[in-house]
Each structure stands twice: as C-alpha cells, then as structure tokens.
C-alpha cells in the first residue's frame, strides 16, 4: 500500500467567529492535486495548515505518515514540505542561486546536498542561465520560477503552490504548466482560481466553498458533474460551477 504523503482528517479552522475550514478531510499521494474555490473559500488557510504554518483548530494533519502535533514535529515535517505562498517574498539583492540556497538552509537540506540540490532546482525551473543574476533584475515570470525553485530545493515530498500563476502572461503560464508536469513525481497541491490550469495539470481536485469540501475526486469526475445549464466554456468549468451551486460532496 502506498503511503499518503499528506492526509487531513476532520480539519477545522476558526478565525474569530468565522469558520474558515470545516471538517476537511482528504489524502494525497504522488501527483498533482488542484485546489479550487472562490475567494474566501479557505484555500490559503488550508495550504497554510498543510505547510504547518498554523496548527489545526481541530482535526489532524499527517505528513509522510506522521501526525504533526508539536513544534518539533512541525519542524521535522517542514523538511519535506516545499511551500510557495501566493505573495511569496524574496530578497532582491540575492542572486537566484543565493536565494534558493538560502531557502535550502532554511529547510535544513543537508550541507553536502545543498549545492547540488540548489543547482538541480534552478535547472528544474529553467533558470540556469540566470543563476547569478540578482532577483531584482528578473521578470515576474522568472521570479515565479525562482520561487518554485526555492520550493522544490531539497526534493520535498510535498509541494504546496498557492496561486502560482497569478500575474503570468499566457506564454509564461504554458511554461509553468510544463514545469509542474515535470514535478508530478511528488505530491503537489496547486491552489488556483484558474480552472483551465487544473484541467491541464491535475490528477485530482478538491473544491472548497465556505470552508467546506464540496467536491473531491478525479479531475474528469468534476467535468462529468457539469449541469447542462451551468455557466462555463468547458466541461470542467461547468462542473466546477455546478458543484459550487449544488454543494455536491465527493
């Protein structure tokens, strides 16, 4: 039996009086999982919880089979988690290499593997020729690539990408898709508004609405749920709109 890279059981997050996540459960092995939902659905809260930035209000998060309960367990788990926040920060004076290597240090990638891992991550995102350029000199698309390189350095088992295609032009988005496909040997959670990205990239999809999972299943299953009168240009868009409207649970 293949072990889940990450699994969530009965996750609940309450911020003040607002229920942000309610009884969220799913598991993920290798492959790309899309996380869809309207603004305020809880996607970022879910990713932050998976990244162990915030502990669950209730429920349980398991990373590589181990329950994360304490700060020590969270730090251990983070060695295997690559996380690219939506508004990811970077140090403009650092070169691409320095920045990725710095994140490798933050992730406690062993010293002997840090250099090779950094080079591999940079090569993986196609920035080898800009490796020594400062981040402030890169375009928006290249910055995203550098951010992804920082997320994948050290070959984490779990990769969490929050709205990674925001601000990219169509050509850059196509490049990005190719990049994500090359990472599909690990567990990737891709949070996005863009249903077409999910259709192109994801094996499975979780749709959140109001903090609740309204769909969890294979991508094509979401397309199959499309109601004939649902808005949307593609089957998956109509499927997505349908589950939002009806609140069908996977």
């Amino acid at each position, binding site marked *: 039996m293949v072990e889940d890279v990450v699994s969530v059981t009965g996750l609940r*997050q*309450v*911020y*003040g009086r607002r229920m942000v996540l309610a009884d969220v459960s799913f598991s993920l092995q290798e492959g790309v999982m899309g996380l869809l939902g309207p603004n305020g659905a809880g996607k970022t*809260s879910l990713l*932050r919880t998976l*990244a*162990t*930035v*915030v*502990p669950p*209000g209730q429920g349980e998060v398991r990373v590589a089979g181990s329950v*994360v*309960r*304490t*700060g*020590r*367990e*969270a*730090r*251990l788990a*983070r*060695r295997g*988690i690559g*996380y690219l*926040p939506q*508004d*990811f*920060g*970077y*140090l*403009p*004076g*650092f*070169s691409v290499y*320095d920045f990725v*290597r*710095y*994140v490798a*240090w*933050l*992730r*406690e990638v062993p*010293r002997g593997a*840090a250099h090779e891992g950094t080079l591999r991550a940079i090569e993986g995102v196609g920035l080898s020729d800009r490796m020594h350029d400062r981040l402030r000199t890169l375009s928006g698309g290249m910055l995203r690539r550098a951010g992804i390189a*920082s997320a994948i350095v050290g070959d984490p088992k779990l990769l969490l990408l929050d709205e990674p295609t925001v601000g990219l032009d169509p050509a850059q988005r196509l490049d990005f898709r190719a990049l994500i496909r090359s990472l599909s040997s690990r567990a990737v959670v891709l949070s996005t508004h863009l249903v077409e990205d999910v259709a192109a990239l994801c094996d499975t999809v979780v749709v959140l609405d109001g903090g609740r999972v309204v769909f969890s299943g294979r991508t094509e299953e979401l397309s199959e749920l499309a109601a004939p009168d649902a808005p949307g240009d593609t089957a998956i868009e109509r499927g997505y709109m349908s589950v939002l409207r009806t609140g069908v649970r996977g």
Partner: protein
Amino acid sequence: MIYAYWTELRRSALRWWLPVLVAADLTVLYERGRWWIGVWPQTSVAAQIPAFYFGPLCAALAAWSAGRASRQGMDEQLAAAARPRWQAEGLQLAGTASFGLAAYLVGIVVAAVTSAGSAGPGFLWPGYLLLGATVIVGCTAVGHALGRWSQSRIIAPMFGALVCFVLLGSLSGTLGFMVLVGPPDARVAYWPLATRLLLTVAAVAVAVSVPKPQLRLPRPAHRHYGCGQAFSATTAVMAFAGCLAAYATAGPIQVIRPMPADYPCTDTMPAICVWPDDQKYLPRLSAMASRLGELPAGQFTVPARFYEQGLRGSQYRNVDFTIPEGAMWEVATAISIQIVGETFPKACTGATDDDTAAFFHAEFELGTWLESRLTGAPQPSSVHGGPPGVDIQAIGRLIYTTQESQLAWVRQRMATIRNTTCA
C-alpha cells in the same frame, strides 16, 4: 551555516558601509589625539573608543536591515521553515555585527601597528577591546530588536541610534559601557567585564527570539505549533533580566592594578619612575629631572625619587604624578607640589586672613614657577586656569630671565612664607 553566513555578508547592503565605518574608526583613532601611541593600555582604550561611534551607527543599520523579512514578504516562508526563526534572525544579526566588528578590528590592527614601534613591553589589552566589541554587538542587538518589532525603515533606525547614543553618550560614565582613558595603574575588572559580555549575549538572544510584543492575543491565523517560541522568548527575557541584575551589582569596570615588581626610572638625580607601560616618557622625564637639577642650589628640598601613581602604596595615590593624555605639565604640577610640600612641610594658617592669603599666594607662585622650570616653558595654552591670583604669564616670562633675577624672585616668596606668623 557558513555558506548562509557568507551569503549574508556578500549580499548585505551594509557592505557598502564598511569603508565608511573604517574611515570613521581611523578618524576617531587619530583625530582624538596621538598621546596613546606607545602605551599599550592607552592604545587599547584608544582602539576601543570608536565603538562609541559605531554603536549607534550599527544600531541604526541593524534596525534597517532587520525589517528585511517583513518588508520583502518573507515572514510566511520563515514561518514555514524547518529551521527555527531565531537562527535566521541570528544569522542576519551576525552579518550586521560582523561589519561593525570588521571595521573595529581594522582600527585595532592599525592602532597596534602604530604603537608597536615606540611601546614598552606587553601588547594590546584584550579587556578594553572586548568592552568595545560588546558595545558594537550590544547596540546591533538593540537595533535588530527594534527593527524586527517596528519594521519601519526610518523610525526604527533613528530610535535605535538614539537609544544607543543616550546609553553610551549621556550615561556612559554611569553605566560603564566604555572607558575613555587607560592609565597604567588601572585594569579592566574581570567580573564586571564578564557581566557586560553576558548582558550582550542576552541582548542578542532577546533580539533574535522575542517577537514583536502584542498587546492582544495573537489572531488565530498567527497561531504557532507548540510553545517553543514563547518558551525561548521568555527564557531570553529572563536571562537578560538576570544579566542586567548581575551587571548592575558588579561594580566599576576599571579597578586598581597591582603594583609592579619592577619599573623603569630615569638615570638622573632625582630619579623619576614610571610604569613599564609608560617607559616611552622616560626621555622627556629625564629632561625634566635635569632641569630640576638646575634649580638654585640650597633653596628647595627635592625628594630623591618621584613616582608615577600606583607604583607605591595607596597612601601615595594623591601625592604621585599621573600622565593624563601624555601631558608633561600635569607631571610637573604634581612634582612641584611635592617639592613645595617637602620644602615647607609645616602647614600654616596665618594669624590674619591677609597673612594666610600671602602665604598661599607665595606657595602658589613658587609652584607655578617650578612647573615652568621643570617643563622649560610657560604654561601651555592647552592648560586652562591655574592657582588663584597667580600671574601665570608673568611667571612664564620670568623663566627666560637670568638665574640671579629668578633667584631673587624665589627668595622673596620664600621669605614671605617663612615670615608668615602662623596661628
């Protein structure tokens, strides 16, 4: 860790400030005075003085640098890092402090090289140098903490510099974070120095581990796993409080140095003896002793030896001379007082106020004349004031007149003293 530290140094914006810091260090070192050259304790103190200027500057630079993570939106990535936040903060603080310490080190090396040619036995005194290093690191920690808590590019650096400036400037005498002179009869006290080192380490621990103080409970979105962060922050604050208490009760940073077993003296009669550290002054003191031998014979009682403060027992501390900032006039003043005291050992209060005034006026004039004769020149313009009622300029002119006219002048004053009717 080493590569990450090296990256911090290479990529830090502060590296552009390094030449400025070095220039500031050397300017302070040489423009404040050159009398420290050739005396190791004074050289050590002189090399430490630039830390007074670096402290506020490092605090400002650290405050500016420390807000980097928040300004660049790195907080989320740091929160998701396997490495504890304090290590990332500590690395950045170490980078900032390294620039201050590097410039400080350049100043120390230059001071040592400058002194080596003319200095007596020994070398730089590490106690004074450590004191300067604690100031630089401590101020860097203050600035880093303020930068983390405020995140403002302007307010935090200004406030950090101001805090350190007040601590080091207005209160430095009270707080003992710095010393301004290193006389050879004083040394750095070990325990007070240790408490300052510990206080600095504790300040660094607070700066890297204590998050921005919150008046309200953290929002749920900002909760953390476990209580490790709160525990380490509380521990750091408690350690800082403990070190602060130890520092406050440790006593003065400078204490009296034990008397040396051996010390150099001039080959003159009378002899003038100094600490081994001050042996560079022997030629000038020999000249002074020679001029002492040229005084009118039989008029004054001159001790066979004069001692620098600290070479004899504590009962002589107020009698023996010091050489503050290499000033020979001060030496001459102390020796003159001794000669006048030996010549007229009996204290006298006149029968009338006029008698008393005349007695002391004559003594003061003789003392001032002796000072000028010993140094071979009138009172220098850098020395302000003098004994009350004494015409210093007239005495300055007197020493260039004939021996006979000076002798007549001296006898007149001596007669005044001897003829005073004591009560």
